[in-house]
C-alpha cells in the first residue's frame, strides 16, 4: 500500500534473493530400518526482495512461512537452495561466520511474551545487541538503549523493569527496539502483530512503517492476516504447504488473484459491512491441509481445489506470469482464475480418490449437522480462513 510505503513495487535494487530454498525437518521416532520421513516445511521456494520494500508472506498455520523466515535469518541450516543477501551468498556459511552478518538481518518475533527473557531487565534485553557485538558499554550503552526505547514509544525510565511489567503492545515495542539497535538492512517480522489486540496492532504497524521511512528498512512481513498484509506490503507471496503459490504486487494480488487458493483465502476475509458480507459468496474448501510429511503430487493444492484437473495431479505447475500478467505477478497454477471468476461455479474434473477424504468418525460433518452453521451441502466443509483470529495471546 503506497500510502504507507514510499518505495514503488519495482523500485530499488535487489537486497535479498532466495533461490530454490528447501528446508526439510527429519521426523523422529521411526523404527530403526524404516525409511526416514521428513516434514517438507519449505520446498523449492524462490523470490526476491528489493531494498526498501515490504515483502508480505501469507499462508495458513503450518504452511512453512515461519520456517522460511527463520531459514533466511539462518536460524536453521537449510537443506538446499541459495540465499543471497546484499550480494553475499549466506546459504552455506557457518553460524560463527554468520554472527557479524546478524547485525544486518534482524527478526521480530510473534510472541511478545516468549520472545523476551522473563528473568532479565528490559534495559539489558534491548542492550543485548550492543553487548553481543561489543559496540557500546556502560553508560554509553544505557544512553543508546534509552534512545531506542524513546524512539519506539516506551518510557526510558522503565529501563530497569522486567518484561512481565509491560503490556503486550509495549513488549512488542521492546522487541522492535532490540531488532533496530543496529539499523539492520533487513528485518524479518514473523507475525509481529498476530498476538496483539486489534487497536494495538495498528499502533505497532504504524511504528514499523515510521521506522521504515526513517531508516530505509526492508521488511519481510510474515502474517496470516490478509488485511494487515495488504496494508503494509508492496509485494505479497502466498504460501501453501511449503510452496509459494502466487507472488504479486499487493493490490494486484487482491484485485486479480490467479491461484484458486488465493481466491479462496481472499473470500474468507470478513468484510466489516454485514450487508456486503452477505452478498459475497464465500468459497469453502473441502477437507484439511494434507500432511507436509507426504505432500500431494503435482500441484499441492489439487486435493482441495475446485478447479482441479488431471494435469494438476501429474504436473507441478511453475511459478510464472499467467493470463497476460506482468512479470511481477506470478502464479503456480495450470488453470488460473480469470478476473471476476467465481470459484463456486467449478467442479473438479479429477477422480474422487484424488480429493481429500475426510477422516472417518472424526468430527464428520454429518455427525454435527449444524456445526458449520450454513450447511452448504457437500458433506463436511472446513472454511479456510487462513486469517486466524487476530486474537489475544
Amino acid at each position, binding site marked *: 500500500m503506497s*500510502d504507507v510505503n514510499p518505495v514503488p513495487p519495482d523500485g530499488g535494487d535487489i537486497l535479498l534473493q532466495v533461490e530454490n530454498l528447501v528446508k526439510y525437518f527429519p521426523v523422529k521416532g521411526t523404527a530403526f530400518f524404516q525409511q526416514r520421513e521428513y516434514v517438507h516445511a519449505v520446498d523449492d521456494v524462490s523470490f526476491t526482495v528489493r531494498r526498501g520494500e515490504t515483502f508480505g508472506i501469507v499462508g495458513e498455520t503450518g504452511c512453512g512461512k515461519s520456517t522460511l523466515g*527463520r531459514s533466511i*535469518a539462518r*536460524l536453521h541450516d537449510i537443506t538446499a537452495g541459495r540465499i543471497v543477501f546484499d550480494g553475499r551468498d549466506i546459504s552455506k556459511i557457518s553460524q*560463527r561466520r*554468520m*554472527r*557479524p552478518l*546478524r*547485525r544486518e*538481518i*534482524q*527478526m521480530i*518475533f510473534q510472541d511478545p511474551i*516468549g*520472545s*523476551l*527473557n*522473563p*528473568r*532479565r531487565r528490559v534495559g539489558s534485553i534491548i542492550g*543485548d*545487541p550492543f553487548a*553481543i*557485538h561489543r559496540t557500546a558499554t556502560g553508560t554509553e550503552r544505557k544512553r543508546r538503549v534509552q534512545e531506542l526505547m524513546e524512539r519506539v*514509544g*516506551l*518510557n526510558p*525510565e*522503565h529501563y530497569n*523493569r*522486567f518484561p*512481565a*511489567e509491560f503490556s503486550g*503492545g*509495549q513488549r512488542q515495542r521492546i*522487541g522492535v527496539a*532490540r531488532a533496530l539497535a543496529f539499523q539492520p538492512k533487513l528485518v524479518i517480522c514473523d507475525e509481529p502483530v498476530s498476538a496483539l489486540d*486489534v*487497536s494495538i*496492532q*495498528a*499502533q505497532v*504497524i*504504524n*511504528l514499523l512503517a515510521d521506522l521504515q521511512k526513517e531508516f530505509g528498512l526492508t521488511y519481510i512481513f510474515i502474517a496470516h*492476516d*490478509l*488485511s*494487515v498484509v*495488504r*496494508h503494509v506490503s508492496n509485494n505479497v507471496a502466498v504460501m501453501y504447504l511449503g510452496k509459494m503459490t502466487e507472488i504479486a504486487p499487493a493490490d494486484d494480488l487482491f484485485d486479480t488473484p490467479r491461484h484458486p487458493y488465493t481466491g479462496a483465502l481472499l473470500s474468507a*476475509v*470478513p468484510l*466489516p459491512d454485514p450487508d456486503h458480507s452477505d452478498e459475497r459468496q464465500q468459497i469453502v474448501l473441502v477437507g484439511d491441509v494434507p500432511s507436509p510429511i507426504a505432500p500431494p503430487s503435482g500441484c499441492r493444492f489439487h486435493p482441495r481445489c475446485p478447479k482441479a484437473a488431471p494435469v494438476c495431479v501429474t504436473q507441478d505447475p511453475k511459478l510464472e506470469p499467467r493470463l497476460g500478467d506482468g512479470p511481477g505477478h506470478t502464479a503456480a497454477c495450470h488453470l488460473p482464475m480469470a478476473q471476476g471468476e467465481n470459484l463456486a461455479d467449478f467442479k473438479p474434473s479429477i477422480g474422487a480418490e484424488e480429493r481429500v477424504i475426510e477422516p472417518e468418525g472424526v468430527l464428520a460433518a454429518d455427525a454435527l449437522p449444524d456445526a458449520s452453521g450454513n450447511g452448504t451441502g457437500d458433506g463436511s466443509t472446513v472454511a479456510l*480462513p487462513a*486469517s*486466524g*483470529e*487476530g486474537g489475544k495471546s
Partner: protein
Amino acid sequence: MSMVPEVTGGGSQATLEAAAEPIPVGRKIIQGRSPWRLAWERLRTDRAAIISTATIAVIILLALLAPLIAHWLGHGPNQQFVDIGEDENGNPIGPNGTFWFGTDSSARDLFVRTIYGARISLSIGVLATLVSIAIGTVFGLAAGYLGGVADALIARFIDVVLAVPFLVIAISVASIWRPSFWLVIFVVGVLGFSYPARIVRGQVISLKEKEFVQSARALGAGPLRIMFVDLLPNVVALVIVYGSLLIPAAIVAEATLSFLGVGVQPPTADWGAMISDAQGYYQYGYWWYLLFPSLALLITTLAFNILGDSVRDALDPRGGGIYK
C-alpha cells in the same frame, strides 16, 4: 478474525491515526515487583520457613562462636579431663553442671565437641553443595543447550555416576588419598552433581525452544552467551531450590563418611565420627554419648530440609516444581 481497519476507505485511515497517539506514561499506580521480591514476600509469611531459618541461624551462631564458648567454659574441643571427665573405671560421665552434654570415651566435653562438629557439618554441607550445583549447572546447561554428542556424553556420564553406589566410590577415593576435610568436600560435591545436572538439563531443553533463545541467536549471540546470559537466569531459581535440598543431603553424606572412618579424621570433632564412637557405649547406659550428636545432626538436616521445601514453594508457587 482481524478487525484491523480496512485501508481502502479514508475513514479508516483516521482510525489508524487516532490509534497511534502516544501511550500515556509516567503515572505510577502499581509498583512493579521482581520475581525475586515476590518469592521473598511469600517466604517471609511462611511459618515453617521462619522457624527453620531461626533454627539454622542458632546452629550457625553456635558454630561460629564455638571457640568463644569453649574459651568461656574453659573446655577445649580436644581437651581431656582425666580427673573430672571420667568415672573411676575410665568411662564417660553423664550431663552435669560442668559438662552439659556429658563427656565422651576420651573424657572430652561432649557439648563443646558437638558445637565444634557443627562447624564441620555446615561448612562441608554448604561447600560440597556449591561444588555440586556449580558442576551440575554447567553440565546441565551444556547438555541441554548443545544437545547432540555433548548431551549424549554428559547424559551417559550422569547415568554412570548414578548407577555406581555413592559409598563405593567415596570409600575407594578415600582409601587412595588420605581422608581429609577437602577430600570429603570433593567427593560429596562431585558425586552430587548428577541430580542438579539432570534437572537443569531438562529445564534447558524446554527453555531453548522459547523464542527468546531464538531471538538471542538472531542477534548473533554465541552458545556460551546464550547458556550463561540468557538461560542461566532462568534456571537459577531451580538451582537454588535444589541446592537448599542438597545441603542436608551433603551433611548426611559427610556424617556417613566420617561414621565409616573415611571422612574427617580424629581428633577433629565431627558428628558422624562421634556417633560412630558412641556405638560401643550407648547400650551400656551412656545414652548421652549417642543422643546429643544424633540430635544435632537430626535438627540441622531437618531444618535445612524444611527451609528447602519453603524456598521451593516460594520460588515455584505452582508446587512440586522440581519433582516433575
